[in-house]
């Protein structure tokens, strides 16, 4: 189970696209071996926060700490080699590469191809059947499996997942989260973003709710469950704009 040692720590993060600020003083800690769920409505800034965490975006202020070291401004490829593995929103695959070539791209993390194939094909036999097919021509679920394979096969220290469920049938989502739970049990820390809380709360140790670029609540899943509807529907006072 999780320890209390922080592995990935975001503190006081402010981030902006051009000059429009979308994250305001966000603090989030992922302890070693724990699963943290980040929830929130569309446009809350969840993806942006993940981009900051994996180095795709630099915060305008605040610190990103990984294993105790400040890693602001470190390039994403370096963080990836050091064990931060992010599966981005949408399909995290290269559409014009074959499945096998997609797997080959994962070897930059230092794990040999044979081992990656063993784990990926072992877990998702469907991928083995289609190893020569272009990834872009596979179904959404198959693509998501391929994207997940990187998280599984490259022994990351932190796995960051952005909306695994996007566009997938509930049964596949359940399957994927079953795998997430297994990965978590093997000791990998996980930061996962989801729109629909039910699928992820069963797996998470902690959860945080983000609204309008701020973390408004965080706690254990049980503590938060009652407040979720509130965060999504918004209360009368907070979202007046929507009713005009």
């Amino acid at each position: 189970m999780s320890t209390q040692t922080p592995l990935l720590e975001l503190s006081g993060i402010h981030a902006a696209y051009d000059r429009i600020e979308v994250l305001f003083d966000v603090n989030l800690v992922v302890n070693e071996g724990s699963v943290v769920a980040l929830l929130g409505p569309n446009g809350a800034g969840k993806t942006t926060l993940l981009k900051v965490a994996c180095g795709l975006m630099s915060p305008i202020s605040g610190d990103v700490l990984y294993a105790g070291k400040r890693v602001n401004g470190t390039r994403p490829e370096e963080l990836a080699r050091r064990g931060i593995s992010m599966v981005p929103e949408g399909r995290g695959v290269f559409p014009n590469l074959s499945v096998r070539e997609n797997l080959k791209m994962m070897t930059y993390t230092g794990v040999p191809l044979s081992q990656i194939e063993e784990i990926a094909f072992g877990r998702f036999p469907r991928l083995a059947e289609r190893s020569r097919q272009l990834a872009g021509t596979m179904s959404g679920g198959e693509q998501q499996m391929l994207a997940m394979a990187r998280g599984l096969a490259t022994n990351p220290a932190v796995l960051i997942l952005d909306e695994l469920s996007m566009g997938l049938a509930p049964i596949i989502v359940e399957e994927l989260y079953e795998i997430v739970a297994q990965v978590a049990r093997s000791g990998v820390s996980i930061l996962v973003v989801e729109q629909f809380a039910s699928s992820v709360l069963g797996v998470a140790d902690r959860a945080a709710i983000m609204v309008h670029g701020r973390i408004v609540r965080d706690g254990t899943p049980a503590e938060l469950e009652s407040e979720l509807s509130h965060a999504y529907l918004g209360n009368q006072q907070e979202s007046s704009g929507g009713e005009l």
Partner: protein
Amino acid sequence: MDKFLTFTIVGLSTGAIYAIIASGLVLTYTTTGIFNFAQGAIGMLCAFAFWQMYIAWEWPLWLALLLSLLVLAPLIGAFIDTAIMRGLEDTTEVTRLVVSIGLLVGLIGLANWIWKPGVSRNVPAFFSGHYFSLADTRVTGQQLATIAVAVIVALSLWLFLRLTRTGVAMRAVVDDRALASLNGARPNRVSMLAWAMGCTLAGIGGILIVPNVALDAGTLSLLIVNAYAAAIIGRLRSLPLTFLGALILGCTEAYLSGYLKSTPNLAGLRLAAPAILLFIVLLVIPTSRLRGRRQSREFFPMPSWSGTFVFAGCVVFSGVVLATTLSNSDAVTYGRIFAVGILALSLVPLVGFAGQISLATLSFAGIGALVFGHLGAGGNPLALVLAFVIPAAVGALIALPALRLSGIYLALGTAGFAVALDRWIFNLADFNIGPVHISLFELGSTEVAPLNIFGYSFNTPSRQMVLVSVAFAVLSIAVVGVRRSAYGRRLLAMKSSEAACATLGLNLVGTKLTVFALSAGISGVGGAILGTQLRSISPQNFDFVSGLPVLLLTVVGGIGAVGGALFAGVSLMGILPLLALLGVFFANVAGLLPGIAGVGLGRNPNGSIHDIRDGFEPIIRYRPAIIWLAIVIPAVWILRLAGIYGNAVFFPLLVLSPVVAVIFATLKIGGVEQTPTVEEIPLEWKGFIEPWKESDLIELDAALGINEVSIHVAP
């Protein structure tokens, strides 16, 4: 049979060179997403460097090869990647294309600077004296080596891209750069390597071809047109198909030169064959479907009528000022500012509004000039109408097969058309199509009579200067009219997303056809007017290469605005000739400038006109400055007309007065525009640009006429 074998071998060895250059094109396209128009120019530069070391300095062959292929070429590649291409993310295809055209023009300028043109430079054939016989036919060492190198290059490249991790990463980076870095690949290094390899391939091609052709910067750079067709046969993706295409191309050329009767009319056909083949290939290969939305950081604001009329007024005024002050010979030189401006203007609706790329502007101008030359006897202004209509019809005819093409394919198609015209059609003698007698340049040059309106002949350079400035002004207003009309909105919509337009039921075919015709028509008029200024026109005035700087500088100026067109005219026909007057060094710089400007485009894809206008912003906002200018400029001009001083004083004064006005206005009201105050934020943007406030709600209610407020803003 012998003859056939000989030609086949010649064809295969030429094809092998095309294959090497084309595979470099495919490599950079698949690994960086940029179609590199400058591929041939890079090969040219390597060939010149090789000549310098091997022939001029007499260094050993291996050293010259090593330095030019494994040091110089990769360095050029690394430089292109870091200094130029990195800045091109989120730019449109037009911008990327223009940057590589800029590179092409710049490299030619550079080579002509270092190696003075007009000197004959030769590289002897490699392995000369060695040959072997194949059924009575001699295969020279050079031919064999070329073919062998091509095969080795093709095989190793194919294996590299398929089997090595770096090769896979190169393709991955084009697919999704961010994802590649999330996998731990280093995208910057990967694309730098891709450029380095692409340039080395260009260099190999360049060095292998120099024993066969003259070492001339322009010719060598444009051999690439032949390689385009091969790369397109490979659909810019497949190396084996590219290789095959190159061989077919090489053999076609060889057979044409071997078996075609050598009449003057057909000699041109041989030269034009690759371009024609390119055009045909583009028409038959399947291309990608309608493009969806692409994000870009390019944005051109809607021009206002008042601004446009002021602009047009200033253009005509400058025309009059120039006409009354310049000497005859200067009026000839600088008179082309506005004529070239009209050619550039033709690109604004097509490229700027509709997002279609055409590299054939000058060809349509040539057609317009020919029409006016032959049909406008005595300068009949009605022929000007024909100089619009006939190029427009040809433009629509060309657009018809090109309708299914977009982006880079369209650019190449129009390039093929332009090259076919200037290598072949323009050099034909008169001919008949049925009852229609067609005369072109009559194997040399054609006279164009000056325009004659109601007996008033525009037969002096200064009269022409005024005429052409008025024509430019009128056409600018027309183009702005197009932009502001419903049709203009359709063009813009088509640029943003063809797929979305199609689903909305917009008639894409009609829209594309008309915009092509419109653009070709404007070019035609521009060409006709240019023709009356030149008096005598020849195919060289309208060739493909001379057309490139026009597109280049219009995009640099701002392809979405009529000001961009004027920018192109002024810089090409005003500033560059002026620079050249300053001495040899500056003439060389002038040769390089269009290229440098194009290459720098990535930094500022919206064009310079935008910045220039911003520079004048203080005057526009400070009324006394405008009044001051309205008095000083005419005064300065009148004093010049009165003969108080000459042009050496007049033009500096003319340039200085707005500068003084800007400085003065800036001191008076501050240069930077104040950040918009709350009142200036449009109502529908409330709450987006700045946080929502109680006062906004009240204002919104007032504007919408809502009295009862039932919603409250959180404290």
